[in-house]
């Protein structure tokens, strides 16, 4: 595709439910990143993939958060037992390996009620 695609664009869920957020990176990009942006805050790093491996998971806030990537392409971020503080915009980005610029998707706005 032409850009990074994320789905859904909006998600409202009840506290305690699990949610899955999907990211389709730019074709050929081996690096994939997840970030979280809360209202009025900067972008908070969550996890980095190189291929299907995640060498840096340091930003995942708790064990309720997990992510996987398959086929070196699509990635899914899963939040279990959602809490109200998980409400934020979840952004995915991809890039070629070696430190080149990262391109972002439009984000998934998650609201936990």
């Amino acid at each position: 595709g032409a850009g990074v695609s994320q789905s859904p664009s909006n998600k409202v869920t009840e506290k305690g439910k699990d949610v899955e957020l999907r990211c389709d990176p730019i074709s050929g990009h081996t690096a994939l990143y997840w970030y979280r942006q809360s209202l009025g805050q900067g972008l908070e790093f969550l996890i980095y993939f190189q291929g299907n491996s995640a060498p840096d998971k340091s930003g995942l806030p708790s064990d309720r958060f997990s992510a996987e990537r398959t086929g070196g392409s699509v990635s899914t971020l899963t939040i279990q037992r959602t809490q109200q503080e998980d409400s934020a915009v979840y952004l995915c980005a991809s890039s070629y390996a070696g430190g080149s610029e990262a391109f972002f998707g439009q984000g998934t706005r998650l609201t936990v009620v």
Partner: protein
Amino acid sequence: EDQVTQSPEALRLQEGESSSLNCSYTVSGLRGLFWYRQDPGKGPEFLFTLYSAGEEKEKERLKATLTKKESFLHITAPKPEDSATYLCAARMNTGFQKLVFGTGTRLLVSP
């Protein structure tokens, strides 16, 4: 601790009034300094990458510069359509590939 700080938090300009946004960084070896533009409800849009002190890049009314401790985004004769939040991010030379972001500068250009 690796840190990126942007100033001012918000900036209001009249159309045609040039100004600069600042991004200062304290990272353990810089591997790239990135500028992004973010419009409300959208993901960040890539603008520039700078890799070494003294480097400059330009795009339309925007020019980004880099020193050993900070980067500037100069906006010349801005137009209302330049209104957005401008984000700066640093990638370190150690460890992995994550970008450390500042909290951004909200720019409003009035006609």
